[in-house]
Every structure is written in structure tokens, then in C-alpha cells.
């Protein structure tokens, strides 16, 4: 029998098999992902991880308890997946029906069998050679709804992929990459819309947040993060400076279903360091904006760093929870900012509840009762350079924090680094960098840099405990209901600590640090897995 005949015979046999027998032999697959599944957050059975932050509140707190402080030291690796590409993971993998959906650098993406780490399909985008993406040719993850995956690209497109095959369902252009737009954010599905933003704050773009219809890819609304003439906030930009105002959006925000509000952190104003040509507060750069999820209209905003000149994007991850404040339960948003301050804000109004430094901050004495920073002199970058703490990478940055609601503790990987900031007047050339300055680290001998995992009380901003690293870590965090926190140090170790006191319980040298992303956890065949993205590898761990 030749090959063709064999295939034909097998096909004929399959057709002849009564379909009822097939169905009876197999467990029906779970239905495609619904908006209800996403709303439910991380399920108690650990069967899925469907959004960037695990749930719309971005808590990255798993209800799973199989792995505990007592047994975590017995974790063993199950498998390792290697990307075979240049560049490192900054992604949060999604899990649905025992399949991991993973985006990697250079817009390569995979569906991976969560049991074995074996690839099911691979998608690779042909990228133009003249990309203008700053700060890592990375991607921070998929969003999922129904049988579609959503991914942004370095050439500023939004794609919908078929979750079963990785083939393109639709492809829309967000903006023209050639003049500095790119996109690296993990999209967020809210109802029938997929929410994305654009990077390019170092290229003089005009930032925005977009909503697209999940089925058609049609744009439903756009919110410009730099208001145009006639719009409120445009007066906070001198002259025409709003045109190149930056204010990019490259980290996924939170969504509050009851308030129907999206809350997204907005990037730095352009040019980054030379503020003289953009006098004013420069709204909505360095702000948290709360948008109506149906219309994209601004409900409130809070600007952490008015008229920023240190490249302190507010593109950190906001986390939502309920807290008892002055005898009342209030919905709040918690935010550890690149400028070195930790904030608790009212989620309905944006009003400031708590603001306290979580690292050394030399640029502001405190946050005043009016919500504005009380500035200290000598911190404006100059031609000669001026020293400020924190540095341009910030007290923290885009690596996700986590929150344990049972102990009301906010966790963040903090950096203690100072920098000499320089500024000079830049020339705007479309597609060219437009930063107007640079930073240079203060020498170790003058100001030793280090990092620490810090546990913060969100009702006071006070530190509960810290675990120090030799140098600053850029790892995201994951907590579990069993009292664990997973982190990474800058030297390639993945760490598990007791989330109540910061005691180190387990570590493993991955060969590359977790950078900008967290471990995630879920159940496969009755076993709790911990998935660690580090460098070009994904490794799944479980108890023996």
C-alpha cells in the first residue's frame, strides 16, 4: 500500500466510525473562554490563567494551596521550553484547557502543551528591518476570548490569532511604526472589546489607548493620552509641544467591573529630560487615567509626577482591592511608582488616600495634601548633570507587583539606585529618538546600588519586611493563598519566600534572571505547577 492509499484508508475508517462512539470515549473539551470566565479571575480549581494579571484587579494572587511554605523546597522541574530566538521573555503566559499561550521576543508566539512543554504551534511575524521600538524587542503577553488570541506587535499592529492554529484572523494597524510607534503591551479583553496602547515615548509620539471589537477588529474608541487643542488638559502643554508629547501606554491596566472603569498607567512626556520646551504639567503623562470601558471617556486622572523630567513613566501595574479606610470599606487602587512613592488612591474618584516613599527619593519631600509632590531643589537635569534618586529606571518599574488580600499586603521589587541626569535641547526628527538628555549611574563607590523585595501595608504605606538582593532585581511577583511569594533575583535565581515574614524557603539558579515578568501558577492533572519565564526559557515546576 503506498502512502496515498494508506492515508485514504485511514480517512475512510475515520468516516466510517460512528461519531457517537468517539464522543462517548472522550471528555468533552471545555467551552471556549467567555467574558464570565475572565470576570471570575483565578479559579479555585486552578484550571486557567486568562489575563495578564490573573484577574482584572491584577493581584497576581493564586488561590492554590498544594505548594506550601513547608513543602516548597521539594519542587522539581517537569520540563523546560526554549524559544530558539534572540531576546528574553517579558511575557505572562495564559493557560486554558491544559494549553499555555505564550508570546516571546520579536513577536514569536507559541501554544505549548502544559503537561509536557512541547510546542503545539508557533507563530512568527515578519517584522520590518527599520523598527523604531525602544527598550527591548519584547512582548508582554496574549489576551484571550472565545477561540481567539490577541497580540500586539513591534511594528504597532494588533493581531487576532486562531487559538487552535496560531493563524491570523485579523490584523489592524494601530499607528505608523516608522515615526516611532510600537506596541509591547499585553492586551486586555473587556466585554466585547480588546484594549491596547502604544509605546514610543522616546520618539515624540502622541500616545493613546484604543478599544477594538473582538470579532471584527474594528476600532470602537480611542483615548489620546495627550489632549489635543480644545480638549481639557491641552493647556498643560506649552505651544505645540503636545504634538510630540509621548505619554505612551505599554503596561496592562486594571478593570473594575462595578465601576466599569479601566485604569491605565501612562508613560513619560517627550522629550524625556528637557522640560523647557513643554512647560506645564503635561497631562496625562505620568498619570493613572480611569476611562469608561464602553466609551473610552475620561472619568478621573491622578498625575503622580507633574512635568516629569526623569523618564519616570507611570507604566507600573495598578492593583485593585477593597480596604477599610476610616471605618468604611473603599474600593482602592494601589500603585508603586517609578518616582519612588507608593500610593493608595480611591478607585471611584482617584482621590489620594496614602502616599509614602518606598525607596530613597531626593526629588520630592512628600506628597502634599493637594496630591501634588512637594519638590526639592536641584533635581532638574542640566547640561552639567544633576544627581537624583531614584534613577531613570526608577524605584520600581513595569515588573508586576502582587497583593495578598488575606493579609492586606502589597509586594514590590524595589530598586535603590541614584543617577546623574543630563539634559540638552533636542531636535524632533520623525522616527528619531527624542529624549533631550541621558542618565549616568552614580559610581558604586559613591552610592552603592541594591534591590529588595518589600512588603508594604497599603493602608499606611509602611514597610512590613524586606528581603535584600545583591543588586536591583527586575522580576515580577506571584503570591499564593498558602503563604508563598515567588520572585527572582538579578543573578538568575528564582526564589520562594514566606509571604508573612520574607524568610527565604527555596531557590534555583535558572541561568538568566526573571525580567519584567512573574512566575504564574495553575493546576494540571491534579498537580500545582509553577511556571517560571527566565531569559529564553520557560520551566514548569511541581512537587514530586
Amino acid at each position, binding site marked *: 500500500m503506498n502512502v496515498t492509499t494508506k492515508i485514504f484508508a485511514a480517512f475512510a475508517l475515520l468516516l466510517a466510525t460512528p461519531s457517537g462512539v468517539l464522543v462517548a470515549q472522550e471528555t468533552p473539551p471545555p467551552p471556549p473562554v467567555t467574558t464570565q470566565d475572565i470576570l471570575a479571575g483565578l479559579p479555585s480549581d486552578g484550571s486557567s490563567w486568562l489575563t495578564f494579571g490573573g484577574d482584572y484587579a491584577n493581584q497576581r494572587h493564586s488561590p492554590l494551596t498544594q505548594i506550601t511554605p513547608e513543602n516548597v523546597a521539594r519542587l522539581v522541574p517537569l520540563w523546560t521550553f526554549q524559544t530558539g530566538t*534572540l*531576546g528574553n521573555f517579558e511575557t505572562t503566559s495564559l493557560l486554558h484547557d491544559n494549553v499555555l499561550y505564550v508570546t516571546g521576543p*520579536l513577536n514569536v508566539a507559541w501554544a505549548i502543551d502544559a503537561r509536557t512543554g512541547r510546542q503545539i504551534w508557533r507563530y512568527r511575524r515578519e517584522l520590518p*528591518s*527599520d*523598527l*523604531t*521600538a*525602544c*527598550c*527591548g*524587542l519584547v512582548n508582554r503577553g496574549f489576551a484571550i476570548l472565545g477561540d481567539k488570541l490577541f497580540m500586539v506587535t513591534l511594528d504597532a499592529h494588533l493581531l487576532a490569532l486562531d487559538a487552535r492554529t496560531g493563524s491570523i484572523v485579523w490584523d489592524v494597524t494601530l499607528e505608523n511604526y516608522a515615526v516611532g510607534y510600537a506596541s509591547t503591551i499585553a492586551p486586555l479583553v473587556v466585554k466585547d472589546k480588546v484594549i491596547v496602547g502604544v509605546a514610543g515615548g*522616546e520618539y515624540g509620539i502622541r500616545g493613546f489607548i484604543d478599544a477594538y471589537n473582538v470579532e471584527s477588529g474594528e476600532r470602537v474608541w480611542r483615548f489620546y493620552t495627550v489632549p489635543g487643542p480644545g480638549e481639557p488638559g491641552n493647556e498643560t502643554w506649552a505651544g505645540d509641544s503636545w504634538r510630540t508629547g509621548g505619554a505612551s501606554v505599554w503596561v496592562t491596566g486594571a478593570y473594575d467591573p462595578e465601576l466599569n472603569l479601566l485604569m491605565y498607567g501612562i508613560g513619560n512626556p517627550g522629550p*524625556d529630560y528637557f522640560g523647557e520646551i513643554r512647560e506645564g504639567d503635561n497631562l496625562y503623562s505620568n498619570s493613572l487615567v480611569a476611562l469608561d470601558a464602553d466609551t473610552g471617556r475620561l472619568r478621573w486622572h491622578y498625575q503622580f509626577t507633574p512635568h516629569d523630567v526623569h523618564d519616570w513613566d507611570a507604566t507600573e501595574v495598578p492593583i485593585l482591592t477593597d480596604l477599610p479606610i476610616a471605618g468604611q470599606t473603599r474600593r482602592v487602587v494601589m500603585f508603586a511608582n517609578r518616582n519612588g512613592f507608593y500610593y493608595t488612591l480611591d478607585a471611584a474618584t482617584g482621590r489620594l488616600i496614602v502616599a509614602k516613599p518606598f525607596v530613597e527619593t531626593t526629588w520630592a519631600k512628600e506628597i502634599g495634601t493637594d496630591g501634588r509632590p512637594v519638590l526639592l531643589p536641584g533635581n532638574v537635569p542640566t547640561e552639567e*548633570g544633576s544627581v537624583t534618586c531614584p534613577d531613570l529606571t526608577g524605584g520600581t518599574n513595569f515588573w508586576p507587583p502582587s497583593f495578598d488580600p488575606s493579609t492586606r499586603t502589597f509586594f514590590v521589587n524595589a530598586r535603590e539606585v541614584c543617577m546623574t541626569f*543630563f539634559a*540638552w535641547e*533636542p*531636535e524632533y*526628527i520623525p*522616527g*528619531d*529618538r527624542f*529624549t533631550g*538628555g*541621558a*542618565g*549616568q*549611574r552614580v*559610581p*558604586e*563607590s559613591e552610592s552603592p546600588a541594591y534591590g529588595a523585595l518589600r512588603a508594604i501595608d497599603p493602608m499606611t504605606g509602611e514597610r512590613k519586611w524586606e528581603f535584600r*538582593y*545583591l543588586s536591583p532585581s527586575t522580576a515580577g511577583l506571584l503570591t499564593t493563598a498558602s503563604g508563598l511569594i515567588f520572585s527572582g*533575583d538579578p*543573578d*538568575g*535565581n528564582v526564589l520562594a519566600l514566606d509571604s508573612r515574614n520574607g524568610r527565604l524557603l527555596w*531557590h534555583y*539558579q535558572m541561568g538568566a534572571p526573571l525580567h519584567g515578568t512573574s512566575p504564574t501558577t495553575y493546576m494540571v492533572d491534579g498537580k500545582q505547577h509553577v511556571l517560571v519565564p527566565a531569559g529564553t526559557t520557560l520551566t514548569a515546576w511541581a512537587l514530586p
Partner: protein
Amino acid sequence: MSPMHSFVLTTMACTLATAGLAAQDRLETNPFAGDSAAIVAGMGQFRQRCADCHGTDARGVRGPDITQVWSSGRTDGGLFQTVRRGVSNTEMPAFPAPRTSDRDVWQMLAYLRTLATAAPTEPPPGDAEHGALLFESECAGCHRVNAEGGRLGPDLSRIGSSRSREVLVARLRTGVDESRPGFQPVTITPESGPAIRGVKKNEDLFSVQILDTRQRIQGYEKDQVRSVVDGPRSLMPVFGPQRLSDADLNDLVRYLGTLRGFDPSVPPRPPVVF
């Protein structure tokens, strides 16, 4: 204009443009090297386009340190192409014409060159042959040149193209403020046996990897030893006038200035006894 005329003119224009480009592509040395006006203009270009990633002093922030590119063997022409074309699959962007002119690129490189080495103003003093003998007796215990010598200090086979005479004199006379990564002194005290001294090659929270004074590379787990103690500053001694006269200093620095990269044709010296 007839279509044929138009075709001919377009073809000519393309040919001329290509020829111009090819001519620039073939330039191997920087036409603006050492031109003070070009260096000032290049500083502006460098700050606008490069400093954000490579730092104002080109020693690296997000991007790598590029002050040693010439000493590592890159040429003006090669660097011109790197700037023009970028480095694919990295963040190093291309700076294509016409947005960035050839003059802009050469001026940026002319400025960068000033950060790499200080231009000598007069012929360097000293006797290199005598300097080589001094190196043998004073330096080769810790430093290697052309695959000969010790390993506790940095390899100096190309020090002449990466450090100016002024920097070398300062390092010898006043010592080194901070050890380079990989050369920080460290002492490890095991649970039993004598302390082990060496330089730190790597470290994380749980372990340290060293080259010890017997030139053995070895890793130690911190919870398996009694202590790991960092040494002060650097093992590099200060060579004051008592130890090295001004004339000897000139000879030694003159010799170091001749070291421009590993040269396999140089016959190995007799083995050094430590």
C-alpha cells in the same frame, strides 16, 4: 519630458546616488578624525542619538560600553556601517540616509573616538625595551600579555589601544579606586583549613566563584563555608616614586603603549616563576 528622457534621467540619478553611496561605503577611515569642529558637532549628534542608551560617556547604560570598540579591532569603516545599518534583532537602530547624513555619522564617530583614547600631543617618552623588562619583574605576576603572565589582574595585551598614557600613569602612581568586575579581592574561610584568597569572578546570594592566588578557579556555596569577606579596593599596588622612578615609569608606560592586541607571532617568553 518624454517617458524615455525621464527613464534615462532617473536611471542616471539612481546610478549617481548608488555610486555616491558606494563611495561612502568604501571609506575606511574617518574623514573627520581629529577635526575639532567636527568633534563638537559630533558630540551634539552623539548626545541626541546615542547617549540615551550608551551614556554620555559612552560607557553604557541600557546599551553596551562602546569606548573600547577600536581597541577590540573594529575599524572606522566597520563602525560607520554599524551605525548606518543598525544591528538587526537588537535595539540598535539603523540611522539611514537621508535622515542621518554621512557627515553626521562620521562626526559622531569622531567624537566617540575622543572618549575612547586621549590623542597624544607629542611623541611618548621612554624606552619600551627596558619597559618590557620592568613589566616582567613588576607586573607579569598578575597581568598577562600575549598569553604569558599571571591571571589575577586584567589581561593587558591590548592596553595600549584602550588606555591613554595619562590614565596608565595615574593608575600606576595612585592605584585603582575600584576593582573592575571580576577582579575584586575576596577571602573565603572554609569550615576547616586555611583561608583562601583570590579575586571574585561571580557572585549571587548563595554562591561565589573565584580565581585564587594559586590560580585555581573554583565555586563555593556560602552556607558551606565559614565566611566570605570582600577585600578593600583592588589588589593593584601603588607604584610610588620610591618603587618606580620617573624614568622607569616612562619606560614601563612606553612599553604598555606598544601593546595593541594579542600577537601570536611574538615568541613566548621564558616561563615566569611565581
